[in-house]
């Protein structure tokens, strides 16, 4: 049992207090070309480091960067921050909402292909299920699975040896697109094979996300339903039913009330947590603040990662949530969620499948 962090595998008992959904850098693909986004890499490094150190100082041990692949993740940058701050960082693979985090490359083909031509394409490009890219859950599954087991992709076409520790997935608020469905199913398949958990975004579609993840055989104990404290979709009944099935709900927008229109006030969130605890589901709740270390062309959070421990935990304390429950919320539950539990047999089957997949696609690799 181990947890893959940016500085290597860590024993679950060494994680300490965990913030389950935060962001180090956050920007949508393309911010790089926008003249209005002035990104000072050195200044961003300083500010994220300061936020990590503040988290550490308050007793924080581990932070999950739940941005997925495309929202600014920069593995070498994150790793250096982790080394300097002493905070364990678990990075994520996967995609969230299509409009903000799945760029055109993954949308599959752009034009009609005749029936004959489709046969031709399948024959000519071994290793590519169907036409190409995102138009199959298997394609995305391998993308995510390789990041969990071989190492994450970094800028400049570098495959680092640093593995993702969790899969982030999700959809738009008001529906699940075709591609988002592939991405959610792929997240479940990759997480099941690698023995890690999935955390979702967009509580508007929480039930649908849970259905899709379960349909691909992911156990409820590996599913964290994120954003359950979004003021547009607060639903204790829903949260209890997820908990009853063995899944987890995340109240992960602590501290956003001033910065985001649909974030609830922290005191209301305390009431939510308290209700779940009183219903006997203390073990099914995780907490976080979705703070942003440095944002590129998106709204940043005014609060830092320490907000959870410096402000929210004292509120829970005042509301009568005891020491033992706090330990469960902040330490025990995340530890269970993050510890990888790989089923060796399933992994072996997949390795054999992947080997066939790769050698077939290498046979006719172009050499420019």
């Amino acid at each position, binding site marked *: 049992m181990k947890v893959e962090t940016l500085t290597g595998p860590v024993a679950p008992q060494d994680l300490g207090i965990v913030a389950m959904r935060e962001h180090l850098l956050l*920007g949508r*693909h*393309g911010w790089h070309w926008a*003249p209005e986004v002035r990104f000072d890499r050195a200044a961003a490094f300083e500010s994220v480091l300061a936020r990590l150190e503040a988290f550490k100082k308050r007793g924080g041990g581990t932070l999950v960067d739940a941005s997925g692949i495309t929202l600014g993740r920069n593995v070498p940058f994150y790793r250096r921050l982790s080394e300097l701050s002493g905070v364990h960082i678990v990075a994520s693979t996967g995609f969230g909402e299509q409009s903000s985090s799945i760029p055109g490359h993954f949308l599959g083909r752009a034009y009609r292909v005749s029936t004959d031509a489709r046969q031709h394409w399948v024959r000519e490009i071994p290793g590519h299920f169907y036409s190409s890219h995102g138009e199959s859950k298997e394609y995305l599954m391998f993308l995510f699975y390789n990041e969990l087991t071989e190492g994450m992709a970094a800028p400049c076409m570098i495959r680092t040896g640093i593995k993702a520790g969790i899969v982030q997935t999700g959809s738009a608020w008001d529906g699940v697109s075709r591609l988002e469905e592939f991405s959610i199913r792929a997240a479940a398949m990759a997480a099941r094979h690698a023995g890690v958990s999935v955390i979702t975004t967009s509580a508007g579609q929480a039930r649908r996300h849970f259905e899709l993840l379960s349909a691909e055989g992911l156990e409820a104990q590996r599913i964290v339903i994120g954003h359950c404290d979004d003021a547009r979709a607060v639903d204790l009944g829903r949260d209890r039913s997820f908990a009853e099935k063995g899944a987890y709900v995340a109240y992960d927008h602590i501290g956003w009330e001033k910065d985001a229109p649909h974030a609830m006030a922290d005191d209301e969130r305390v009431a939510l947590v308290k209700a779940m605890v009183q219903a006997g589901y203390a073990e099914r709740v995780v907490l976080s603040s979705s703070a942003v270390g440095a944002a590129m062309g998106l709204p940043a959070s005014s609060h830092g990662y320490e907000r959870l421990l410096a402000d929210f935990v004292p509120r829970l304390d005042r509301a009568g949530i005891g020491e033992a429950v706090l330990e469960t919320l902040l330490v025990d539950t995340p530890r269970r969620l993050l510890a990888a539990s790989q089923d060796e047999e399933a992994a072996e089957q997949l390795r054999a499948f992947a080997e066939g997949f790769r050698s077939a696609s290498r046979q006719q690799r172009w050499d*420019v």
Partner: protein
Amino acid sequence: MACVNTVLGPIHPDELGVTATHEHILWGPPGWEYDPEWWFHPPKVFAKCLADLVEYRELGGTTVVCCSGIGLGRDVELYRMLSRYSGVHIIAASGFHEGRNISPHFQDKSIDEMAALFEHEVSAGIGDSGVKAGFIKVGHGHYDISELEEREHRAAARAARRTGCAIITHGAWFGLQELEIFASEGLDLSRVVVSHCSSANVMDIERDKAMAGMGAFCSYDTFTIEPTWNVGSYAGDDERKADLVKAFIDAGHIDRLILSSDVNLFSLGWTRSSPYTGKTTMADMLRYLPGVLRRVGISESTFWKVMTENPKKVLPIE
């Protein structure tokens, strides 16, 4: 004084010479860099593109217009090196492509925000590179002009009016609707090239005549993209495209005619440049298109004249 922005700086319009107006050096939808299945070896790509450009120059080509917009493979640092060592003028694009290929960061931007972006790239430069874009590229999909694409078109028209640059569209599918949008923004339609009029799935000589009548340029730019190797429904036989060009010339619109081949010297994240789907370059067009056109009665001197004179009418920034 009118000039043309190339990646190595402004040149005089009379320096353009033989110009391939709709080509791509690198092209690919955004996001391939996250997908290791499609990573490549940059020195090999540089060498491949350089060899192709040198061949293009040796066959008489002078200028290549790279229609890859923001986030679509456009790499002006690379283009500068390629231009410096091949001697071919390279013109880089501002603007985007069809909506699905616009990077997520830009998808929710307003018309004015996009217009400011395009204007900045044409008049101040692309990022911190100091390279100015030479024109604005816009596009729409095969099925409609979406709300996002309409914003893109309007923004391009406003930026083109402010800077005096041309617009090249990915857009015969709804070419007339595109021109209506541009006209409603007050743009002089002789600043517009409507591309892909020779796509197999949208050939329509009446539409082309109407667009030329409105002053726009019609670009028959898919020569060399044939169904023998390309599975897209836009791929067609070059003979049929030549017939279309002949009809367009016979209708009296030779001064609105653009010829090009829309090849990617290297494709990012898709298969156009892989050997098993056929590999063509803009040099191939210079090598064999005169022969294809001669068979339908267009002389070789007409071909070279069209390649030289017509881009010069639309590309210069006044």
